């Protein structure tokens, strides 16, 4: 089948099998580097993308699901070579060491802050529960998100 969707603002068309995952299409067919394969079962969060603004594990999303929708990877958050606020906060807080979990972490942070601009610590911990980090450590990541939390 032929699927057509917006990837980071650009329309793409690609052939996919009905059983292909979005992750497979992004990596193998479209050569996207900003999405990582980790566990393949929705535990690690390295493959997270936003579909119409909501976070999804691309390893658990069938390619057909995104037909006609908008997919955003971490690369799509930057504009004209300028990093987004969240990406800058991760840099400033040293929240990426090897970087493997970073795309998923940043997109979950975005999804959280979009619907809850001032999350509590509990809410940040819970939002990140589906994203594993094995080297940076969670503290700098949580600090990066907290630095963006709008306290009123």
């Amino acid at each position, binding site marked *: 089948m032929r699927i057509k969707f917006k990837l980071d603002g650009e329309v793409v068309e690609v052939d996919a099998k009905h*059983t292909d995952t979005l992750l497979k299409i992004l990596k193998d067919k479209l050569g996207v580097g900003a999405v990582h394969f980790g566990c393949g079962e929705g535990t690690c969060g390295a493959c997270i993308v936003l579909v119409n603004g909501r976070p999804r594990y691309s390893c658990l999303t069938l390619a057909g*699901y995104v037909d006609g929708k908008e997919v955003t990877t971490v690369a799509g958050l930057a504009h004209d070579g300028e990093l987004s606020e969240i990406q800058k906060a991760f840099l400033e807080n040293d929240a990426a060491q090897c970087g493997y979990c970073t795309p998923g972490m940043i997109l979950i942070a975005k999804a959280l802050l979009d619907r809850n601009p001032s999350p509590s610590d509990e809410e940040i911990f819970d939002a990140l529960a589906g994203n594993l980090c094995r080297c940076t450590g969670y503290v700098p990541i949580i600090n990066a998100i907290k630095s963006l939390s709008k306290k009123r």
Partner: protein
Amino acid sequence: MSQVTSGYYAPASLRDAISLKKRLRERALIVAGGTAAVQLISKMIAEPEVIISLEKVPLDYVKVQGNVVEIGATTPISRLLEKKDLPNALREAAENIHGLALKDMATVGGNIFTPAPAGDIATALLSLDATLVLRGTRGMRAVPFSKFYRGPLEYNIKADEVLTAIKIRRAPGLSSFLKQTPLRYSGPTIASASVGLDLDKDKKARRVMVAIGGLTTHPYRVKRVERFLTGKRLTSELIEEAAKQLVDDNVDVIEDALASSWYRRVIAQVLFKKILNNFIR
């Protein structure tokens, strides 16, 4: 009607979804949120000729009317949590589905079909005496959730039926769900317990529903313990007594790398006692 070729179908109506399912039966895999169904494909457990995605079927809703809560089968956990007046056990189970992405993807209906360690929502729904609404080409059927599981991955559903909604009538006045996971914020359920309870004016148990999750492929109601508690005034001694008979020796409890069956039995008892002791505190 023309031959359905292999492919991905996202019917826009329930009627179309049901008629596809009727024609294709076991050749088709129904996908709601995808968190379990897609793993069947990627782990090569299933090779469906056809995917029927329910993403466009309008089953994503929560309605509370009087003492009836109705939840559309494809309602994701995050949507469920937007409702303020949910029965407590259901809210607790939903809040503790870990992580934003999983909360957005996993659906209430999907949770009912997914074997352990999934099934937190199902465990809570069992303790709320929920009813499942199934629709097929020959009409609608309401099945008490406690009569839905027939064995591991065997359900009281026909090949042309689709689970469309879950109804809770007269939710118990008290209800609570607790689970144990390897980490505080994540990991699969090792064991869970959920209890729904109505007390009469003498503080005696009038209606008791006890559900245990994580120990077997699907959660189950513990009728023996429900009968034992009904009509009695709950005390810590009585709760202790009930906990001893919570997990029957005949139950074949899951044993895996995460936890022994002995540990799962003990944890289920601990959670059950915690819930009831919180009720009487």
